[in-house]
């Protein structure tokens, strides 16, 4: 690669040709502020509309200012990043943006975590000239089960549009109108719930302002815990423990499982359980289903649907229901771990503690926003009482812990309650792309071959960060082709291959978010740094390694559950409590 020499703020820099000013400046420690720019390098998404102009810099010989995020360097370039002309321009432009932005920072959900607010602070903006007669955009706020849209706060950075269209290929959000009235919304500015949105929450994960935020359940949580007549049960998803520490100043990838448990207990949860337990249960059901389908397939049954697709990710499920309804019978019928947990908690566990389901509140702590929606799906409730009452995100939990004045890192290490706190390494890796299928492989392999994997439990070929991965696992002479996709755009490619009959996979794992749940829409914001996701992934595998038991079917509490309550995997009771159907929810054009 050819190199280019240039000067930035009188510092000599040598970078490869094609590098932008922004990246070159970063190399020599010059921090040029950006707003709309977003580079999620590890998933190949670069949002570079050159829209906010906050990164404007002066380039010798150029008439106007250059956007550092989009301008490539050239040999002999002389860049000045913080001259008065630049400072004035930046400040004026941010004043422009703020002049069309609500000033409700005090109560805005993004307050303290808002890139626009940070920028206003950094640029020392103290007043907005002309605000008293400046017309402002006004839109109604849209509440969906997972996501709140406050379009007044949209600054047209287009990050959400990139995620929704380029990464997820969902196409729920698009820029509409033009000029001053332009913003990003679903078609006809309809509510998100009527759009093809999957609630993956990736738009929320990247929104620099409060325009897209999660539905906040922390008030419901406080109410539930405050009610003495209610038994409040927590389940925590695996990806939460790998990211929560970041909210308390820890390096990405710091595992805080034990501290999180004690914090939850001190917040007043009656029982602190682990979704990993339900993940193990999922493997029992899904693994059995996979083996069943495989066996029938190998026996020559033409009707059997292969590949089997995983079904733990609610955004992914909603995606297939919306966009590939003709294929809704190929995902596993197994419910997601969150819902399996809820359904077992309000039956098996409720019996154990002799409580009625009405007096129980099951709260899930999730890295995910789609989980909020999933818990509200009608089929996951009994006579109006949901199996999971509501779901709070990693971010909401962090808020609550801070609010309670706990310093997470000072908390003691504690273990989950039993029985539903017992889990295996297989349950833990559900939190990352490739993890579900690896967990399933560990169990299915042993069930199918009757052998023991012993130390050969790490299926490295299933791990990684590429969007689509393929591997073949030898099931004692039977090669099993496995596909893995994270990101719904990647999932779409695999689905289209299945539809056209080109797919040779037996099983496919799909997760909607980059890196899987560790990159979920409810996680601490990564602020464009995808190395954070990789660090979380590493932590997940570390937790797996540290677990004494690493195969779901060896979880003693799971074994007890089947023995005492469920009977057979895929049996009648299991079917009723742990499986589900999928629906065609695609838009339908009807003749009137």
């Amino acid at each position: 690669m050819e190199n280019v020499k240039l000067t930035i703020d009188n510092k000599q820099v040598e970078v490869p040709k094609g590098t932008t000013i922004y990246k070159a400046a970063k190399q020599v420690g010059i921090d040029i502020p950006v707003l709309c720019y977003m580079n999620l390098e590890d998933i190949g998404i670069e949002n570079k509309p050159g829209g906010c102009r906050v990164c404007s810099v002066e380039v010798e010989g150029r008439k106007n200012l250059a956007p550092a995020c989009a301008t490539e360097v050239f040999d002999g370039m002389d860049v000045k990043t913080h001259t008065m002309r630049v400072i004035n321009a930046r400040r004026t432009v941010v004043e422009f943006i703020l002049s069309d932005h609500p000033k409700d920072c005090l109560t805005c959900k993004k307050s303290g975590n808002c890139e626009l607010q940070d920028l206003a602070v950094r640029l020392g903006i103290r007043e907005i000239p002309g605000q008293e007669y400046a017309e402002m955009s006004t839109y109604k706020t849209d509440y969906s089960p997972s996501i709140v849209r406050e379009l007044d706060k949209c600054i047209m950075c287009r990050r959400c549009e990139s995620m929704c269209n380029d990464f997820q290929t969902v196409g729920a959000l698009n820029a509409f109108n033009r000029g001053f009235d332009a913003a990003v919304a679903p078609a006809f500015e309809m509510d998100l719930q009527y759009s093809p949105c999957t609630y993956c929450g990736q738009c929320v994960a990247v929104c620099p302002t409060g325009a897209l935020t999660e539905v906040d359940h922390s008030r419901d949580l406080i109410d539930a815990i405050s009610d003495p007549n209610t038994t409040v049960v927590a389940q925590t998803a695996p990806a939460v423990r790998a990211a929560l520490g970041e909210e308390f100043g820890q390096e990405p990838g710091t595992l805080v499982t034990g501290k999180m448990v004690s914090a939850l207990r001190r917040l007043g949860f009656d029982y602190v359980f682990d979704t990993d337990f339900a993940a193990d249960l999922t493997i029992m059901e899904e693994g059995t289903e996979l083996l069943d389908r495989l066996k029938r397939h190998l026996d020559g049954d033409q009707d059997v649907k292969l590949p089997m697709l995983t079904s733990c990710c609610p955004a992914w499920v909603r995606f297939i229901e919306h966009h590939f309804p003709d294929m809704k019978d190929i995902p596993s019928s197994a419910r997601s771990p969150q819902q399996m947990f809820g359904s077992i908690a309000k039956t098996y566990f409720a019996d154990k503690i002799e409580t009625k389901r009405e007096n129980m509140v099951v709260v899930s702590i999730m890295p995910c926003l789609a989980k909020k929606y999933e818990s509200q799906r009608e089929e996951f409730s009994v006579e109006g009482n949901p199996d999971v009452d509501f779901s709070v995100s990693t971010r909401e939990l962090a808020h609550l812990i801070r609010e309670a004045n706990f310093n997470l890192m000072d908390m003691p290490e504690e273990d989950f309650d039993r029985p539903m706190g017992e889990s295996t390494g297989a349950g833990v890796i559900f939190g990352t792309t490739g993890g579900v299928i690896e967990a399933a492989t560990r169990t299915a392999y042993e069930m199918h071959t009757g052998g023991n994997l012993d130390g050969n439990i790490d299926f490295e070929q299933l791990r990684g960060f590429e969007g689509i991965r393929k591997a073949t696992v030898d099931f004692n002479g039977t090669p099993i082709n496995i596909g893995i996709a994270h990101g719904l755009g990647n999932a779409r490619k695999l689905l289209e291959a299945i539809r056209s009959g080109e797919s040779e996979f037996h099983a496919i794992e799909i997760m909607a978010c980059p890196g899987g749940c560790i990159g979920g829409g409810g996680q601490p914001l990564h602020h464009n740094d995808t190395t954070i996701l990789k660090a979380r992934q590493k932590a997940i595998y570390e937790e797996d390694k540290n677990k004494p038991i690493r195969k779901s079917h060896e979880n003693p509490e799971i074994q007890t559950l089947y023995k005492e309550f469920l009977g057979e995997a895929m049996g009648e009771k299991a079917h009723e409590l742990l499986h589900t159907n999928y629906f065609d929810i695609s838009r339908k054009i009807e003749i009137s």
Partner: protein
Amino acid sequence: MSRIKVKIKEQDLTKIREICQAHNNEPGELINVLQQTQEHFGYLPAEIQEAVAQELGLPVAKVYGVVTFYSFFTMIPQGRYPISICTGTACYVRGADNVLQEFKRQLGIAVGETSEDGKFSLNCLRCVGACGLAPVVLVGDKTYGRVAPDGVKDILAEYQDKE
């Protein structure tokens, strides 16, 4: 869980399919498709956009994004006698704004709106290339040149009795 249903008349859907097929259902032809669709229907209501999106395999949000970007497209049915006032510079310096205000006043509608009886709609357009006749007003295909505010009444009167 139910599907979002979009209702459309059969012949309308057939027409949209015809237009899309004439463009090989190519997503890149969206603007040309919308042009022809609007030419046929007079405007582009939501259900029409939904159908176009389906036929071209595009997210409807994207179709809406395109429809709302270009001023040529409208989601509001136009009046039977669409009135367009040229607000190009030549017409502006020769008093187009006063003419526009007078139309607004007489019709009681704002730019982009259609009168309650569906008779007139009011729009601005930029330069019809008849600067010699400035200010220019179009009613349907008919051009009125050198229009003064007090001529507005007469123009409207021409259509008042027509159906």
